[in-house]
């Protein structure tokens, strides 16, 4: 049985961000709730959250890679994202990375940290995208500061597993 002090030291980090993230999402949706158009409201909320994640992702990646050598190629960058970046933020790595070798990558997380407490199946599925927007921004921000412009979307069909799709924009 771990002594209480070490349990709280392990737990405190994760839970602080989780609760803050929950509140951010709730706050953004409440702020925009006055509009009548539900779809437009959702788009605005999702992009607000994504932009927040973008700025955070940019900052985080600077911090994480300050002692790393430069990356060989895009695939190397994506692997770094899936392993080091993801495990520092979400305490686990991406479970599956697929690519068509033409700039499109799919990152699959079978137990995404921000979804595990919601449900283990189909319940709350329509609400899940709200809790993925910030993380999409995280990925896009991280890539942007490494020199890669991208479009990041997320899809979820069975919680807590979800997929992030990254399409690198070639100039």
């Amino acid at each position: 049985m771990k002594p209480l002090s070490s349990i709280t030291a392990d737990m405190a980090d994760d839970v602080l961000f989780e609760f803050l993230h929950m509140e951010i999402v709730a706050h953004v949706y409440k702020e925009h709730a006055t509009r009548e158009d539900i779809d437009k409201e959702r788009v605005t909320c999702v992009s607000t959250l994504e932009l927040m994640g973008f700025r955070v992702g940019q900052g985080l990646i600077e911090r994480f890679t300050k002692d790393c050598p430069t990356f060989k190629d895009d695939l190397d960058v994506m692997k770094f994202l899936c392993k080091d970046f993801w495990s520092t933020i979400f305490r686990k790595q991406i479970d599956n990375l697929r690519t068509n070798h033409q700039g499109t990558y799919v990152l699959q997380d079978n137990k995404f940290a921000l979804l595990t407490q919601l449900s283990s199946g189909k319940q709350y599925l329509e609400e899940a995208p709200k809790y993925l927007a910030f993380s999409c921004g995280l990925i896009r921000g991280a890539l942007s500061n490494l020199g890669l412009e991208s479009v990041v979307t997320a899809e979820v069909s069975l919680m807590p597993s979800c997929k992030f799709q990254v399409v690198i924009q070639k100039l």
Partner: protein
Amino acid sequence: MIERMTVHNLYIFDRNGSCLHYSEWNRKKQAGISKEEEFKLMYGMLFSIRSFISKMSPLDMKDGFLAFQTSRYKLHYYETPTGIKLVLNTDLGVPNCRDTLQQIYSTLYVEYIVRNPLCVLGESLQSDLFSSKLDSFIRALPFFSVRAA
């Protein structure tokens, strides 16, 4: 006669008296009133008993109300510092359940309800994940065994 132990049902109330959750596993007799009335009755009883023992206790209070028993069942009670009240009805063979109830609170309620952004505090609990985890937890208890019909 084989001694079998079992869990009958579980109630969870919040600090305002709303019943957040109710599950039953082995209840042979219903109360004969609507569920809403039953929850109010249960909460009213808990409220009265707690106030009674704090007044009438001949010694200083330590943990407060723990349990009561009849000749057929035992009612176990646990209240958290945040005012969440858990009530578990089991049969007489079950010893003190305080740790079990405390575990239900910390590993199930806090994990799957408090950390779920879509569960509004104060409303009845809708999360399927919570219900299924609670069900597995109760069924895995050493003193749970489904009586033969």
